[in-house]
């Protein structure tokens, strides 16, 4: 038998070579996909980790209330735990610590009156406090504006007070308010903690200015340098807080001060990570909190280890899984195509060997012996296919990684062989060999039309069964969960191959009637060439495998292109909606006035402050831990600022206009550096003070507020702090909370015993407060815009009677005069705050809500809700339900106009401006993102960068790369199938060709007949395949697209059928097939002519 096999192999080597070529494609594709799923996936994880932002991989340990003597050991042990958790990666750590508050006995210039002494009271009688801080790498986080940096080594050890004053630097506002300069020596009082550490002296050696983006937002006073309404938690009354006094970390830890907060951040060096190390570190980080608690014991009150590293790796694995499912989809499709091609080749081989088989059968060779022979031959083919496919897949994989998008994602790799790859190739080759064996041992057909009819009947059953399976697959695909999860992956992997195969099998049905129609038309023709081609195409028993292969391959090619386009489009849509605008700069610290101008200068385009934060809606805090999101932006410029697909191709303009206030805010222009003064009078017996808070607006719509110190309403003009720190500001609101001045500090009416027991009448007091804005043009008084409005703030707004505001201009500037009657008796929690605004009192804020929000809350247009923004309740009215809200895809979210929202907050007495980011629409500078990043205001994200991350990031690039494998592989198999089919067809019909020559047909006519026949069959098959591909793109592709978390994409994917690309691909397929057919026909027709008749007849 082996001798027979060897001889047959020598005689039929072209046939076996063709079988080997076809059998090689599938395993090669499998091997390449295996490498994508293993080697590239691992590399992608490593690349993603190495490219991850620091905050995504940093590990931070927070410890609270560390006793002075323990501070150093706690810091050391904490570093040790973090370093151990991140082993084997090299780690750099950065510590930030601040002490508990201490009394600040004598602020130099903190207030206008008096000075507190041992109790730490300022001139106003309000307690004053301060604290120490230490920041590692201070020189990189702040800029020295005067003096020098503090030196270490001046502190004592343990709880003992330092032998000499610690060197410290202070922030500019602190220095200004306390009158500190380099060389100032300051005594800090005792600690306000249970430890009661003694006071200590520090010597100021420098003044610094914090740099943006350097973590100062985690300073207790957010690096403002002071807070005149600081709540230290010891009393409901606010205190004045100044600081910090920034000393060296070693000094702070050794100085005996109780450390209120110690924060150590460890940054691992992930420049060359391995997947195994990353997994190990993720586990270690998850256990670091418990380990730290165990190590620190009772030396601290609270400890916590926080890191996004584990969640970053989990998210990376999610993305890997989504990508892997798509790669496997391509692999399954490729194997299905190869199996079909091999089925065709096997059938043709059996046809070629039919006589040999019949002869051997007549000589007594049984089916078992045939099976053994076929198994040996197929096994040899499988071994050869494996031997070729392993290096071929390695080379193909390496080539693929050097092309976009894998190359762009930093995933270029050299050719290499892995165990998984060899296993995948071998399994694929063996599976295909098994198919060949099955075809070889199939009972020999008897031929004739009866067999043909039986085949058709069987095929009818098979294709209908396939369709039934495909319908189930599609149903499963359609009903897959919208969230992430692995059960749906299997469906996503198998469904496309099943649907395309079923569709192609079904699409073969109308092909034959089409050809029969051509047959009927051809009968009426006069000549022979084309009619005979049509007759041959329509009447010759069709090779189902060939037809299925052609249709399926064409369907795979067109579906691959369509799915790729659909996926790419969805990534764009997801990126658009995820970012919400063209460029978003998320602020790490509250913005300064005039910051918008800097952003605008850096980026160009439409710049707007924006809010994007979690809020509470009434008592509802959201579902499953996801707080409802509030997104607010200048919706009057929605078309410029908002991105993301709305339904029915609708833009954001109309929606934005419906949310924006009908009129803008004009306000009073305030020259930069203007010295505003406040003058007030009160008629009552109780002296009153007011702590004014002013709100300014810059050209970008950013509003900043500025708080003054308490001002007595004594008829004198009091200067206010320099609030107008930037040019182009306009005063848009003033808040005047009135308080009784008892001589013991400003106190609220309800809390003052002196009011209840003190002398004099406690009736109403008529107050008049005038705010003078020098340098403001008198024309501002008559400028068009909303008139100023005065209102009394809840609770108990009736405690202010007849609030009013008037605007007048003169040589000294513009004067804003606010009058009201203050009722001194009444509810203790009454606000007694007058707010004057440059806009009318707004009603409920109009908002649009996402459909998810509407579903969860039960809201609909017209619903009225109450949002809690900060600590202030804001009434809103739902005007529209939209599918989703920009920057909050798929979330329960609310979209509002930031101006309208701010107005509602202001009239509620809250002059804070809820801004979290800058949004830029249509940035005009090409390097806008880089310039915005260079501002160090916070992380910058753009639609383009997000699209690139989603579509070409290391963890995502495998999908388009695999899809781009599918087309060439399918085209290759299609060509191979066509070549095999045409070759064998012509060989088997050599005598028929000779008869045509015998009838007098020229070679050209014979070629025309054969070409017409085969192209005539190819055309409807390709059309059927394209139709199946198109249908699959429309029906299946959107269901296959998932977000980077594995959940359903938001917005939902829309099918994309790139007509031009598809037409070009089809034209190329047709041209390649026609060329292949022509070559075979020319060669075969040259070999076969009428001379054959002299032998065969």
């Amino acid at each position: 038998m082996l001798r027979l096999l060897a001889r047959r192999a020598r005689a039929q080597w072209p046939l076996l070579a063709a079988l080997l070529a076809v059998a090689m494609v599938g395993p090669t594709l499998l091997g390449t996909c295996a490498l994508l799923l293993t080697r590239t996936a691992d590399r992608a994880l490593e690349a993603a980790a190495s490219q991850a932002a620091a905050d995504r991989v940093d590990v931070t340990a927070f410890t609270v209330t560390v006793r002075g003597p323990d501070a150093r050991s706690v810091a050391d042990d904490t570093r040790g735990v973090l370093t151990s958790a991140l082993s084997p990666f090299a780690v750099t750590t950065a510590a930030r610590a601040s002490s508990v508050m201490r009394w600040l006995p004598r602020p130099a210039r903190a207030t206008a009156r008096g000075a507190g002494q041992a109790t730490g009271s300022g001139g106003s009688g309000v307690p004053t406090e301060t604290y120490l801080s230490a920041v590692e790498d201070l020189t990189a986080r702040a800029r020295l504006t005067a003096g020098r940096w503090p030196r270490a080594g001046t502190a004592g050890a343990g709880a003992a007070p330092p032998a000499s004053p610690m060197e410290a630097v202070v922030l500019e506002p602190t220095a200004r308010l306390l009158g500190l300069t380099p060389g100032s020596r300051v005594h800090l009082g005792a600690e306000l903690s249970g430890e009661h550490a003694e006071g200590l002296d520090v010597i100021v050696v420098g003044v610094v200015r914090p740099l943006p983006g350097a973590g100062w937002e985690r300073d207790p006073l957010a690096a403002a340098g002071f807070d005149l309404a600081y709540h230290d938690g010891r009393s409901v009354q606010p205190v004045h807080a100044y600081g910090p006094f920034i000393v060296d970390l070693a000094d702070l830890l050794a100085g005996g001060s109780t450390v209120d907060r110690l924060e150590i951040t460890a940054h691992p060096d992930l420049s060359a990570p391995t997947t195994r190390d990353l997994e190990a570190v993720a586990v270690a980080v998850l256990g670091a909190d418990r380990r730290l608690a165990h190590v620190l014991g009772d030396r601290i009150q609270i400890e916590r280890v926080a890191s996004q590293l584990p969640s970053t790796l989990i998210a990376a694995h999610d993305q890997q899984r989504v990508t892997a499912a798509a790669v496997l989809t391509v692999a399954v499709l490729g194997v299905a195509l190869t199996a079909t091609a091999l089925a065709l080749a096997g059938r043709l081989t059996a046809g070629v060997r039919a006589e040999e088989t019949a002869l051997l059968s007549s000589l007594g060779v049984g089916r078992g012996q045939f099976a053994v022979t076929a198994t040996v031959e197929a096994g040899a083919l499988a071994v050869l296919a494996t031997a070729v496919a392993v290096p071929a897949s390695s080379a193909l994989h390496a080539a693929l990684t050097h092309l976009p998008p894998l190359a762009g994602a930093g995933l270029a790799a050299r050719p290499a062989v892995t165990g998984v790859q060899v296993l995948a190739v071998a399994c694929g080759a063996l599976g295909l060999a098994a198919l060949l064996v099955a075809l070889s041992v199939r009972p020999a057909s008897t031929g004739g039309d009866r067999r043909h009819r039986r085949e058709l009947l069987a095929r009818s059953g098979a294709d209908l069964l396939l369709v039934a399976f495909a319908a189930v697959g599609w149903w499963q695909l359609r009903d897959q969960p919208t969230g992430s999860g692995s059960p749906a992956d299997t469906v996503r992997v198998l469904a496309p191959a099943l649907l395309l195969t079923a569709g192609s099998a079904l699409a073969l049905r109308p092909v034959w009637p089409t050809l029969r129609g051509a047959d009927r038309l051809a009968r009426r023709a006069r000549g022979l060439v084309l009619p005979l081609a049509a007759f041959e195409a329509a009447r010759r028993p069709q090779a189902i495998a060939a037809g299925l292969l052609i249709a399926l391959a064409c369907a795979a090619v067109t579906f691959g292109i369509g799915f790729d386009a659909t996926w790419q489009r969805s990534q764009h849509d997801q990126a658009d909606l995820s970012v919400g605008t063209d460029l978003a700069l998320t602020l790490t610290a509250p913005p300064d006035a005039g910051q918008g101008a800097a952003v605008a200068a850096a980026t160009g385009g439409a710049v707007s402050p924006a809010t994007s934060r979690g809020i509470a809606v009434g008592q509802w805090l959201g579902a499953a831990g996801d707080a409802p999101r509030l997104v607010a932006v200048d919706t009057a410029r929605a078309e410029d600022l908002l991105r993301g697909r709305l339904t029915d191709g609708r833009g954001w303009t109309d929606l934005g206009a419906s949310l924006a206030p009908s009129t803008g805010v004009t306000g009073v222009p305030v020259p930069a550096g203007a010295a505003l003064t406040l003058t007030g009078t009160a008629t009552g017996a109780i002296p009153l003070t007011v702590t004014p808070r002013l709100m300014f607006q810059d050209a970008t719509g950013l509003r900043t507020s500025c708080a003054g110190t308490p001002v007595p309403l004594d008829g004198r003009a009091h200067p206010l702090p320099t609030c107008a720190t930037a040019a182009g500001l306009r005063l848009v609101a003033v808040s005047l909370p009135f308080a009784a001045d008892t001589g013991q500090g400003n106190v609220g009416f309800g809390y003052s015993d002196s009011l209840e027991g003190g002398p004099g009448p406690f009736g109403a007091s008529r107050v008049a407060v005038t705010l003078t804005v020098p340098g403001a043009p008198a024309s501002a008084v008559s400028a068009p815009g909303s008139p100023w409005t005065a209102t009394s703030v809840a609770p108990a707004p009736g405690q202010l009677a007849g609030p009013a505001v008037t605007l007048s201009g003169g040589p000294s500037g513009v004067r804003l005069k606010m009058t009201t009657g203050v009722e001194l008796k009444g509810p203790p929690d009454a606000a007694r705050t007058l707010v004057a605004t440059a806009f009318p009192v707004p009603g409920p804020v109009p908002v649009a809500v996402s459909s998810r929000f509407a579903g969860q809350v039960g809201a609909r247009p017209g619903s009225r809700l109450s949002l809690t923004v900060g600590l202030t309740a804001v009434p809103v009215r739902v005007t529209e339900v939209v599918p989703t809200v920009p920057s909050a895809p798929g979330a329960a979210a609310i979209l509002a106009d930031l101006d309208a929202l701010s107005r509602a907050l202001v009239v509620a007495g809250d002059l804070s401006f809820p801004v979290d980011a800058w949004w830029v629409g249509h940035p005009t500078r090409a390097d806008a993102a880089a310039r915005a990043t260079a501002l160090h205001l916070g992380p910058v994200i753009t639609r383009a960068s997000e699209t690139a991350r989603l579509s070409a990031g290391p963890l995502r690039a495998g999908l388009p790369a695999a899809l781009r494998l599918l087309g060439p592989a399918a085209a290759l198999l299609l060509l191979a199938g066509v070549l095999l089919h045409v070759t064998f067809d012509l060989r088997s019909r050599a005598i028929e060709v000779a008869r045509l020559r015998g009838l007098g047909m020229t070679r050209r006519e014979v070629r025309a007949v054969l070409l017409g026949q085969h192209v005539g069959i190819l055309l409807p098959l390709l059309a059927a395949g394209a139709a199946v591909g198109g249908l699959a793109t429309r029906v299946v592709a959107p269901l296959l697209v998932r977000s980077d978390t594995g959940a359903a994409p938001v917005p939902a994917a829309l099918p994309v059928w790139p007509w031009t690309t598809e037409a070009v691909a089809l034209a190329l397929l047709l041209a390649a097939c026609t060329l292949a057919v022509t070559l075979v026909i020319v060669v075969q027709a040259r070999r076969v002519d009428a001379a054959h008749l002299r032998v065969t007849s």
Partner: protein
Amino acid sequence: MSAAPSTEPNAGPLLSVRGVHRSFGAGPSAVHALRDVSFDLAPGTMAALIGRSGSGKTTLLNVIGGLDRPDSGTVLVDGTDVTALDEDGLSRLRRDRVAYVFQTFGLIPVLSAAENVGAPLRLARVPAAERERRVELLLELVGLADHARQRPGELSGGQQQRVAIARALAASPRLLIADEPTGQLDAETGLSVMALLRGVVESEGVTALVSTHDPTMVALADRVIRIADGRLEGQLGEQAGGQDVT
């Protein structure tokens, strides 16, 4: 390439074979299939070519029909030197003047009987109506008018051969070459086919050269040409043009 031979009919013999040699292989192992064969056939003659297997009958028919080229000698069909024709010229010859009937019938399997018969007419671009009339006539002539729509696979061997004869006659050839047309038929069917051939030769005025082992065919022929070992051994009936046969 040939030198544009004349294709005009003349008044002489329809077929004239002169000094045809054909051998296969070279050297001592060469097989001489035809050795100096010469004879003529007058128009309207039905000649039977007889001889044992391997005597050279099929080779001679192939050379006459242009399926093979002689090593030397000439073959004139209706005045046209077949040996001088190129591929296209041979195609035109087979299309217009020479028709074959093979032992294996040579029908196109995907075409019906009528379409097989009509194929030469389509090649000649005969208008559809005229083609259909002619096909109908020929099928009636061969007694298969009721089987016009059947394909070769649905017909018996005799019926297929009748279709082959009808197709051979479709384009009104001047010379009909039949290579053992009854070789695969039983005696009774073979006889009917022979009778048909005899009849169509008379009715269509065609010249036929039929190789056969069938004595009945020999009896129906106007002439009998015997060939043995590549040489003509003798003739019965008309005198072979220009050659004495011994």
